[in-house]
């Protein structure tokens, strides 16, 4: 399905990463921990039919099929993606603001956070047999982060339908946070009144915080976050605070100690 509208945005930075790199160098542990495992194993994922259940603190809980999600007005957004491991890419996503979907469900006054969940089917996802993480994969955002217009639900990339290894049929993209926050193959979105558990935080709380904003000043306990290597480039480059989206999102964290809330 081609997007109905394509609006190039945020092109002031760098050339996009070759599509081949972005579709063969992936972290999607549901299909294995190796970088090429997802592109080799994800063909078992069934993306049709697909439904996303939206519930919790909303006036209109709903289950919405992928056909209807594809009817949202689509935009192309070219974003930097910074992985917590120290590499980065520039990817042209196709999607729509997460806020648009949340608004449709009419969040109540008690909705303070948004919890996301990935599909959890061992028949489709061979990596679920491994105990590297607790399954299903879950992620979360604070309500104001979720409503920030940069946060999108993506259904495609490089002008095409989302490849399975990149989180088809629908995934989150939060460009100012480390890549693992951008949860893939979403089946459930729940609005909640308290901070929801997140997969990597449950696994190693000292290493992966709830916020996980890209921050060159706060090192991962086991490696520096000061620099990154753009996939396809030879030398390293400096990592930018909020992955370069500080102008848009820094105000969300005004007054917070980002070393504590890492």
């Amino acid at each position, binding site marked *: 399905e081609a997007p109905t509208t394509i609006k190039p945005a945020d092109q002031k930075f760098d050339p996009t*990463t*070759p599509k*081949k*790199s*972005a579709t*063969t*160098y992936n972290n999607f*542990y549901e299909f294995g*921990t190796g*970088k*090429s495992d997802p592109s080799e194993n994800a063909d078992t994922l069934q993306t049709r039919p697909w439904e996303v259940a939206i519930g919790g603190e909303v006036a209109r809980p709903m289950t919405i099929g992928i056909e209807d999600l594809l009817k949202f007005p689509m935009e192309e957004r070219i974003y930097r993606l910074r992985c*917590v*491991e120290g*590499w980065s890419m520039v990817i042209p996503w196709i999607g729509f603001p997460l806020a648009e979907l949340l608004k449709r469900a009419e969040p109540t006054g008690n909705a303070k956070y948004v919890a996301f969940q990935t599909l959890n089917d061992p028949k489709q996802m061979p990596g679920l047999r*491994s*105990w*590297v*993480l607790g399954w299903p994969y879950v992620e979360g955002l604070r309500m104001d982060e979720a409503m920030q217009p940069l946060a999108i639900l993506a259904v495609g990339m490089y002008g095409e339908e989302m490849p399975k290894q990149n989180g088809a049929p629908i995934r989150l993209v939060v460009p100012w946070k480390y890549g693992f926050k951008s949860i893939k193959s979403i089946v459930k979105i729940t609005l909640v009144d308290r901070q929801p558990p997140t997969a990597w935080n449950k*696994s*190693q709380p000292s290493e992966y915080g709830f916020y996980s904003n890209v921050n060159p000043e706060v*090192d991962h306990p*086991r*490696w*520096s976050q*000061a*620099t990154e*290597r753009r*996939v*396809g480039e*030879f*030398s*390293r480059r400096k990592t930018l605070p909020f992955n370069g989206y500080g102008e848009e999102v820094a105000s969300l964290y005004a007054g917070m100690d980002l070393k504590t809330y890492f």
Partner: protein
Amino acid sequence: MATDIRKTANAALTARWAKPLVFVLALVPLAWTFWLAYSGELGAEPVLESVKASGLWALRFLLIALALTPLRMMTGVAALARFRRMLGLFAFFYALVHLSTYVGLDQFFDWAAIWKDIVKRPYITVGMGAFVILALLAATSTDGMVKRLGGKRWRALHKGVFVAGVAGCLHFIMLVKGWQTSPLIYAALCIGLLAFRRWPMRLGGKSRRADRPDAVRTRPAASRESA
């Protein structure tokens, strides 16, 4: 029957071509990585892939070298001992490639960042420790050094190979995200090889003594044996 196989294996391993063949085989992983890099098949992150590949092969050669003595004792194929020095040196060689690719290609000779890594990041500290030990053992691996140090001291020094093995496995476990399977498998193998030194097992219920004279006879420098 078993004796025949043992004899054949011993004969093959002591043949003139055996060492050159093992030498060439041990270079295959390096050549293969070069070939993949040259043909663009190393994936999206060739630098990281070559760092990973060389590190893995350093660990593999170290474990292979450590496995030769248990193998020799279990099978009675005494000639296996001839390959320990060479394979141990290959472990050092791949560790050197691993370190050089990290320093040169990954960090681009940013010495300040590298020094910070060594003192701040336990997995790099541990990896560097393993490398320093391997370098020391490589430097003292010649017949001349065995003589100069004396058998007893040389043996004590070369027990360090176990420390390097454990440190190498730890380095691997510590650098990956989450508890992944393959680093744990390497660690289990390493622990198994260590445990064997403590509680040797042998095939066919032969006593320890029965193996010994056989093994001793084939060693050119007996002092090089014990680690």
